Each structure stands twice: as C-alpha cells, then as structure tokens.
C-alpha cells in the first residue's frame, strides 16, 4: 500500500501555491515532478562528485565513471535487457527515436514499408516521414478506433512482407490507451519487420520487460519517469545496435582516430558522442531507484483506482466527452476530454486560475486529433502523488466553468 501522505511529502514542488491555491498538478504526461532523492542526487553530483567520465585516471573521474555506468546497469535491470551494451543514453525519447530511424536508414530500401499508428506522438512520426521520403519507402498508418484503441484487424491487413519497421507507442499520450504489444510484435516479426517501441508514456506506469516483449528497440525519457530532463534511453538488441550507423560523431564514441580514418567504438559508446549529460544520468538512476522502492505494483494499484474515480466523476458532467478506452484497466491515468461549447484553452486557463495544471491543445498528436475530429482537447494526466480530492476538485471546477460559459 502507498502512504500517499509520505509520497507527497517527497515532492517539494507540491507545497507550492498557484494563483492562491495549492498546486494540483495534472500535467504529468508532459513531464512529471521530481522527488527529493532525484534532486539531491543531482546536486550532490555537482557539489562533490563532478568530473568528466572515461577521460581521466584521477579519482573524481574514476568515481564519476563508476556512477554513470552503474546507472546503465540499473536501466538494464529495470527493463530486463540482456546486457549493459544494449542501453544507450540519449537526451530523451526524441533523440532515441531519431537515432534508430536515421541509424537504420542505410539498411532500408525503396518499396519497403514503415508502419506507424494514428496515435503516435510527432516524435515517432516525423523522423520516419523524413527517412521514408529519402529512401522512397511507403508510410502506412494503423487506424485507431473511436475509443482510442488500436484497430488490430486493420493492422493485420496492413502488415505484409514489405514491412521493415513497425514503430508504435506503448501507450498514447492523449487517450492513455495501452497498445497490446504482445500481439503486435510477434506478427511483425513473422513478416520480417523490426519493431520500435515508444515507451515515453508507459515507463513510469507499467512494468517493461524488453526480453518478454521481444521488441527490437525501445525509447523513453527520464523526465516523464520522475527523473530529470535532458536524458533518455534507447534500448536496442545488441546485434541491431551494431548494424546501426550513429549520426553524432566526435569524442568518446571512437576507438582510434588517425588522419585518414576513424574506428568507431562498439555500442553503446558508439552512439554517445560528446560529453554525456552526467548529472542527468545520475538523476535518472535516482528516479529508477525511487520507482523500485515505491514499487511499480503499488503505483499501479493507486493510479488505476484514481483513473476509475476520475472517469466516474467526469462522466457525470453533462456535455463532457471523454476520449479513450472505457475501462480504466486498458489505459494509463491519462484522461483527455472536450466540453461542449468551451474551447480547450479556456478550460486550461480557468483551471489554472484555481491552481489546477492541465494541458490543452493537440498534445503533439495532430493526426489522432484529426481522426477524432477535434482540433484540441484538454488533458488531465495523473501520477503517483495525485489524490481523489484533487480529482473531485477538478470535477467541481469543470462544472463551474461549464456554467460560466453557458451563462448561468
């Protein structure tokens, strides 16, 4: 069981007031807040352990290197990768996905196909569009049903032997719908296609086991998992990482440089050109440790119950339309909605006036909003420290806003 009070105490920002009200932070899908241990680990790194890694034999450099590599091993265990060499540190999901798309470009041929879904975040669409255009490949979109779930039937029809890549989100950042990867991945492999999983949203909410999933690549960011911004992870099966070309060249990613040529390092160093975001990697390690100590199982129990409560409360508001699966168990605690006659941005502004932080807009998923026929939605995305009272406050505020707009 989670001790919610203690959990909340661990997040200093939750003590803030916004416009005279205690902060209710419901924008966790954009970025999550950071617990003390993460903040402390980073400031401690700068205060007493800062040095560049792999560069010096002095004590500090040695210690920094050890700490950095220990996080790699923590990530490896966290997602159950086979080897530490399969964990590449990047600046975030976006860089991870770009590393795969542009690293794989040279292996792709005209006439081959890339499958995406209509629910992808722009960062899992745009790199593939560029690569597809360059390599004269075809891009196909797996449709999303009106309740936000993937149309599996359509997926099987779209998938054929020409497919080389299926790039797919583990969970939508708009509807929270969880993708049935256990059905997607084996089908893709049977056709000889690789599968790239965008786990930006899922990583802090559902356990990830890359070996059980058997995905070929998986990407996530530190900052959505209670860690710092500026750091992310690319997991790749070892032989596949070996076959990718890096797109960042410079120091640290080489074995030997002569006037004429360079021998590249092996993965993961091959992809980590330049000085890494050291304090951020250390912060990521602290975030994963915090997640493990809090227990993903406890977090899931709390968040599912909160999701159910939110769905019930929001469904009771007349004129409110929810986007996403009906059942709380089929989704992350991400709840997007539209309110009849009230534009999304006005909802967000008026909620902010009461200290409630939500996001409004297309959430970097314009294709999905087009499919829903909505230019913008309002999104309340919940996390481990949110409470039922906060959800009740949201529901009450929405009723107030609605009355205001309808002139009562």
């Amino acid at each position, binding site marked *: 069981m989670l001790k919610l009070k203690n959990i909340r105490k661990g997040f200093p920002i939750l003590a803030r007031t916004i*416009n*005279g009200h205690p902060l209710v932070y419901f924008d966790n899908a954009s970025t999550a807040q950071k617990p003390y241990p993460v903040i402390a680990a980073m400031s401690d790194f700068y205060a007493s352990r800062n040095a560049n890694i792999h560069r010096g034999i002095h004590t500090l450099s040695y210690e920094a290197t050890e700490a950095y590599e220990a996080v790699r091993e923590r990530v490896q265990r966290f997602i159950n990768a086979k080897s530490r060499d399969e964990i590449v540190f990047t600046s975030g999901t976006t860089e991870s996905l770009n590393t795969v798309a542009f690293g794989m470009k040279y292996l792709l041929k005209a006439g081959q196909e890339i499958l995406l879904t209509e629910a992808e975040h722009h960062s899992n669409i745009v790199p593939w569009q560029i690569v597809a255009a360059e390599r004269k490949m075809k891009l196909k979109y797996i449709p999303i049903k009106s309740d936000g779930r993937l149309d599996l039937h359509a997926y099987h029809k779209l998938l054929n032997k020409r497919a080389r890549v299926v790039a797919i989100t583990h969970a939508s950042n708009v509807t929270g719908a969880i993708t049935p990867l256990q059905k997607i991945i084996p089908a893709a492999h049977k056709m000889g296609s690789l599968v790239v999983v965008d786990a930006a949203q899922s990583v802090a909410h559902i356990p990830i086991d890359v070996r059980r999933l058997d995905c070929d690549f998986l990407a996530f960011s530190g900052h959505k998992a209670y860690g710092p911004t500026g750091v992310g992870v690319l997991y790749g099966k070892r032989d596949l990482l070996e076959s990718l070309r890096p797109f960042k060249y410079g120091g640290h990613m080489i074995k030997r440089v002569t006037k004429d040529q360079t021998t590249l390092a092996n993965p993961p160093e091959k992809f980590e050109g330049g000085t890494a975001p050291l304090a951020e990697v250390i912060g990521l390690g602290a975030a994963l440790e915090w997640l493990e100590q809090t227990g993903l199982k406890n977090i899931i129990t709390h968040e599912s119950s909160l999701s159910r409560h939110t769905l019930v409360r929001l469904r009771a508001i007349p004129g409110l339309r929810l986007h996403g699966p009906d059942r709380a168990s089929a989704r992350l605690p991400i709840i997007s909605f539209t309110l009849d006659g*009230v*534009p*999304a*941005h*006005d909802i967000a*502004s*008026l909620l*902010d*006036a009461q200290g409630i932080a939500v996001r*409004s*807009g*297309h959430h970097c998923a314009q294709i999905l909003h087009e499919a829903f026929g909505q*230019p*913008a939605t309002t999104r309340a995305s919940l996390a481990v420290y949110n409470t039922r009272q906060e959800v009740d406050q949201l529901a009450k505020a929405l009723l107030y806003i609605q009355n*205001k*707009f309808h*002139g009562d």
Partner: protein
Amino acid sequence: MEIDTLYRQELLEHYRNPQNFGKLKKATYCAYRVNPLCGDEMDLEVLLDRNGKIEDIAFSGQGCAISIASASHFTEYLRGKSLARVKRVDREIPLRLLGASVGAPRRKCALLVYDALQDLVKLHDKKTGTGKNRRNPRS
C-alpha cells in the same frame, strides 16, 4: 481572481455572439493566421471603399473564447478607419479592448486578430507600393 474578471459574461457574450463573424461577399484583402501553440485559426477579410477606408470587415475560423472575443471587439474598432491609420494602431489596443488584464500565457490568443491585420496591411502596401520606407508595426 484576475482571470475570472477576464472571463466575465460580457466577454463570453462576445464569444457566443461575435460581431463581424463570417465571410464577406466581396473582399479587398484576406489574411489567414494560425496560432501553432494552440491551433487557433483565423481568416480576416476587409473591404475597402474608394478612399481606402474599411467599409466592411469580417473574421472567421475557430478559436478560444479570448481570441474570438478579441476579434469581435477589434474588428468593431477597425470599421470605418483607413488602412493608413490602422497601420499605426498599437499592439496594446486589442488587449485594452478586452477590458481586463490578459495574462502572459494568453496574450498570443488575444493578439491573433492583430497579427492577421498586420498581414492585411502588408498585402495593401505591396499592392500600392507604399510603406516601403516606413517602419511596419511590430508583428
């Protein structure tokens, strides 16, 4: 609460029943603006009379209450003025017309109509060859 003052019934009335909302049958210039941040879209059209005065003006599109109410007020304000005069209208005017302080995060919404107007002025300058040596208002 400041924002509650902004979203008073007078503003919401302009949102629900905006002035000058729709398309003109005949227009001298049209401009289209989007606010990429929030997806608000606006078409702004004017019909000029022989003396270069705004005889008719209309806006259309989709937007939040602030961008619609602001366009409703501002198009009323512009009607009957010459484009030459409109050129010198300060960026604060549409904000002032809303009658309450617009917080920094929403200024872009309130100014969408103003930015569209700058595009119209540019079209006019291009067509008439004026304004080349004159500094354009900030856009």
